[in-house]
């Protein structure tokens, strides 16, 4: 599939398309979002709220929270342990802003 995918004997998986910051990418259904991102060569998932520096996967098992992103409208989702699916929309939280929720008093 690409340079980052290693050969695997695992049974055939369902290819999917998903979006990272509105860009269409491909991955496999059910694998963690962070894995799909890395398969596309994407290491930087968000930026630090304080310094603005890039951050990506560190621990890979949900402890460190460095890989969090907005997934289908839900903020602070840990991409390392959230399965990816067809059409999933992933957005880098640059820093928290009240952009979309500000006027949404539902």
């Amino acid at each position, binding site marked *: 599939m690409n340079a980052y995918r290693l050969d695997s004997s695992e049974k055939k998986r369902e290819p999917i398309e998903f979006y990272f910051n509105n860009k269409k990418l491909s991955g496999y259904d059910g694998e963690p979002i962070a894995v799909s991102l890395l398969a596309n060569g994407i290491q930087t998932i968000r930026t630090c709220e304080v310094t603005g520096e890039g951050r990506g996967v560190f621990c890979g098992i949900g402890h460190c929270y460095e890989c969090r992103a907005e997934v289908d409208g839900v903020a602070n989702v840990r991409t390392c342990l959230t399965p990816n699916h067809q059409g999933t929309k992933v957005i880098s939280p640059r820093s928290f802003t*009240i952009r979309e*929720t500000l006027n949404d008093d539902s």
Partner: protein
Amino acid sequence: MSYKVIVVGGGLIGSSTAYYLAKFGAEVTLVDAKDIASGTSGACDRAIMLQSKKPGPTLDLAIQSASVYETLEEELEADLEYNKAGGMIVIETEEELKAMEEMVERQQKAGIGVRLISGEEARERQPALSKNIIASTWWDQDAECNPLHVSFAYANAARRLGAELKLRSPVTGFLREKDRIVGVQLNNEKVYADAVVLAMGVWTPLLLEQLDIELPITPRRGQILVTEQLDKVMHGNVLSAAYIANKLRRNQGKQAEDPYGIGLAIGQTHSGQLLIGGSRQFAGYETDTDPEVTRKIAEVAVRAFPMLANVRIIRTFTGLRPYTPDGMPVLGPVPGMEGIFVAAGHEGDGIALAPISGKVMANVACGEDPGIDIRPFSMDRFQEPVTPKGK
């Protein structure tokens, strides 16, 4: 030889008292069982609000205290994260509106410039506020600070003026000559002094028990949620009218309609985290957090600020607020005993009242006139006459 004073308790009130005593030239020893701000002062919010104070002697005291805060960073040579960002009490129902109208009127009479504003104006000042808020109070002179910084700044300034700090030194008893306290017993040492000031907040009655003196201060547990770091979304401090109602409610043990005493108190720290309170529960000295309370506080917060639904809570903690039956602190001598004073029972007003409480107690402990009528805060105001039963 100079006048010797022991201050027991390194929270906001104790460290402030130690500082003003040292400034007067007294020989001060500040003692704490743990560390500076290790109790209530390290487990609270950050508001220095006048409009949340009960009109009357407490508000008068708070007004004097607020003016001390304005120059306190300079005086203590420390960053207190002091910020006069204003404050509002948000109103959700007509019933709350009526109650707040009365309160605002009384506060205006007492000389503070708080006023009622419409829901629209409230949202202009605080854009993240929900449309369900029908009105709000607003006063631009309300302020905030970091209570940990204030406690440490007072303690450090006191030390620079010669005060001695004895930390991790629990007071195990009093040194007594007849009806006079002449010092305190620490673990391995006796410390003598001309006066002892107890500024131990909720723990003050536990020590006074040793003298068979009853002090009606009861711990009231308050839980606070901490969020992740956010951009600046909170402008000044925001309370809800329900918070004020809970705070002013004086029915210990009878909170049937809301056993958790949930009311919103929210502010943003310099590092961007929101501190979201809170609850008021009578639960003894237990400092456990309660997931049900976490949930309820979050619900109330999201109702007032819908965008919070998308914000992560990273931890929660509780602090014990020192409740008194009439909602006013205790400042002054212990009746029937010489050489011992109490400065405690500030409940939710400890941050706002710390500077003035310290100044008053420094005068009182040295036998000077504090320049303020402290009779409303005296210990003997509580119903039954308090008499030491001497051992």
